[in-house]
């Protein structure tokens, strides 16, 4: 057995020794660490909402309307004990506890962000693979995508919501549709460059059927950029959901979402700014954290940026 030991192998050894695993690299990036910590914190807040000292976010109490943060009142628990309750973030115009609403609101925001990211990446990936690989479908698909991109996202979302009953699903669909073309473009560009790779041509010559070829040889190359794109979509989805709710065309007002809370606080903003301040801070923090996470992931995962770090 003649196993060559060659200079090229030595060079390869150097490269391999210097290159730590992808995951290790990602975890070393400061903006990933900060972003991930905040996102995890917000997710925990959403999941653990019932045990974080909250009361029902939709409980109306006309006596305790428009209280400033720190106001106290006595509430009756299920086993008829009287407990002193502090409205940490004050109450809104209907006497609902803003703290409870903001904490529960994290649920809707994160669910919307995650669902939109997963759905638009999944749909965009499928369409993008087809557009990039089946040449004659390409121009048709891409013109449809160009058309979609020409309609402002908010306008499109308003249209979709007005066509159906307002609710979580309608809002998610309304945000997913305008995000799809961006994912499609990204995936198509990657497919177009990967399909020229000799290993893809080698797979063609050994008779690999096209669907297998796409999944086995092309798809893995799109994962890293899609993770990055997914986080950015997640951030913008949370923002758009809040905007739609604020405009009153999103999720029904009784459901606590950051956008809804702000919408209700709008009329008395000058006197009771806490109604907008707390959900606003949460929203800004969530979007900032997700974008930081996305930036960090792009720096480490995207080959075009990876070298500079």
């Amino acid at each position, binding site marked *: 057995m003649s196993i060559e030991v*060659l200079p090229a192998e*030595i060079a390869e050894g150097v490269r391999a020794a210097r290159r730590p695993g992808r995951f290790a690299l990602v975890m070393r990036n400061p903006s990933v660490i900060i972003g991930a910590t905040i996102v995890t914190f917000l997710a925990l807040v959403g999941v653990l909402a019932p045990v974080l000292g909250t009361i029902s976010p939709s409980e109306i109490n006309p006596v305790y309307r428009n209280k400033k943060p720190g106001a106290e009142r006595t509430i009756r628990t299920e086993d008829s004990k009287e407990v002193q309750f502090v409205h940490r973030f004050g109450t809104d115009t209907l006497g609902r506890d803003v703290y409870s609403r903001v904490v529960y609101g994290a649920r809707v925001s994160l669910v919307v962000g995650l669902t939109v990211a997963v759905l638009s990446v999944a749909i965009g990936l499928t369409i993008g693979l087809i557009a990039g690989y089946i040449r004659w479908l390409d121009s048709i698909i891409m013109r449809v995508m160009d058309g979609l991109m020409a309609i402002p996202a908010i306008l499109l979302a308003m249209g979709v919501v007005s066509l159906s009953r307002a609710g979580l699903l309608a809002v998610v669909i309304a945000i997913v549709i305008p995000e799809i073309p961006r994912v499609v473009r990204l995936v198509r560009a990657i497919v177009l460059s990967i399909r020229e790779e000799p290993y893809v041509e080698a797979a063609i010559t050994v*008779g690999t059927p096209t669907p297998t070829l796409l999944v086995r*040889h092309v798809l893995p190359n799109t994962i890293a950029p899609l993770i990055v794109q997914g986080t950015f979509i997640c951030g913008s989805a949370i923002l758009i959901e809040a905007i739609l709710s604020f405009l009153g065309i999103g999720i029904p007002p009784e459901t606590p979402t950051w956008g809804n809370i702000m919408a209700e606080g709008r009329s008395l903003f000058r006197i009771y700014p806490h109604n907008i301040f707390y959900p606003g801070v949460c929203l800004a923090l969530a979007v900032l954290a997700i974008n930081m996470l996305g930036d960090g992931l792009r720096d480490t995962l995207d080959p075009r940026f990876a070298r500079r770090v």
Partner: protein
Amino acid sequence: MAETPVLNLKGLCVQLPRGSDRAHAVEDITFSVGAGQIVCVVGESGSGKSVTAQAVMGLLPRELNPSAGQILLQGEDVLQATASRLRDLRGTRMAMIFQEPMTALNPVMKVGDQIAEVLEIHTELSQPDRRNRALEIMRAVHLPEPERLLGVYPHQLSGGQRQRIMIAAALVLDPALLIADEPTTALDVTTQAQILRLIRELQERRGTGVMFITHDFGVVAEIAHRVVVMQSGRVVEMGLSDDILRRPQCEYTRMLIASVPSLKPPARAPKLGATALAMERLSKTYGGRGLFRRGRLVRAAENVDITVRRGETVGIVGESGSGKTTVARCVARLIEPTSGSIRIDNVDVARLPESRLRAHRRHVQIVFQDPYRSLNPRRTVGASIIEGPVNFGLARAEAMQRASRLMALVGLAPDALDRYPHQFSGGQRQRIAIARALAMEPTLLIADEPVSALDVSVQAQVLKLLDDVRQRFDLAVLFITHDLRVAAQICDRIAVMQRGIVVEQGPTAEVFAAPSHAYTRALFEAAPGRNVQFGPATNAV
């Protein structure tokens, strides 16, 4: 030599970062380049020849640090120079030209401005003077119509012209030292001959010392006064060009020179097997009418007639743009030919739709040029090899058995199947690619420049392997290459292509002995080092 040399390296060491598998990129490098001398630094990849050049120019990557030694440029130690002193030295006293002229030139800057920029930085010349100097040097590098070329962008020039611009920009200030890092590797052989002649002419006229980095012994024979042979970061042998080429002392040098294929084809009996591949009037045109614009029509291949018998290797030889790869891709049906027929085992596959083509795919396999890209980096070698057989219904276990037999056949350990492509060297990867092709049990193997990305010593091994498997499996081999030496050694017959047309075709020995077409003769004349006999036969010391 009485005068001080232009460049004098004394015991240069460059450290590699910690965790690398050797401590130094280069170690104890000592040699000198005299005025008016061309010193060729020869070595395979990883030998440290480029690191040496970068150290001289002060262009080492940050992770690499010179740890010992001196680099004396006309007596001044470059390693001690400050950043601004280095900037002054570059261009005025030393200059460098690179392998790939397209990436070394700024694509959005007119070439005249790029030459004038050097003058602007280093001299006080006025603008009209700068222009005149630029014109003067462009004439000196024999660029046609220098006035017109001043105002064009790099992409409007051919590869050879771009390299001439690079040389012009490097020499415009008459540096004492010119470093050329594989300046002709990316060029066609006829262009290479012109550029080599140009470097030689300019350096003689101006008395420039040239440090010429190359892996090609043909080029060395063509241009070098003195030769420095490097291996794994050390100088293993140096001396006068004639001595090294004809009487190499070091074992490694001897092996390198013996690995260079000879231009003289060995005698080969004509192969009389059944016809495996017959192309008739095969044509491929690109462009033409689009939906919105009328494109330029490019005839990439025109009326190509080539047949390959079983057990025979037929070479298609040509420069870039000659259409040789287009023909290969048509035969492999990676692209659809515009007209003509491709009969493989008496079935015309030229026009078959993809669905009916699949059954024929297994008969034709291809080995690609770049072994770093022809294997999917995310899949194990075993998975890549069995992909084809499993596609055609072979059970996985059986396919794996076949794969490990093939690994042994191509000279790799069977446990290599569980490893990933990046764990192998270039030559090993090419062996794996050959194993993958053989796993399909093809009748026709297309080899598209299979050795041009490999070091010369590995090249010889891979060529030998290809010849072995051809005999063992009675394969028909269509061998695409730009390298006449390789073609001479492996091909039974060759077809010479120029601009999409086969200009000459015949048994290798006949074509090499008496080329009938003017283009073939030009190719032979341009082959570097044709006056030196390489190869193992003449190398008995």
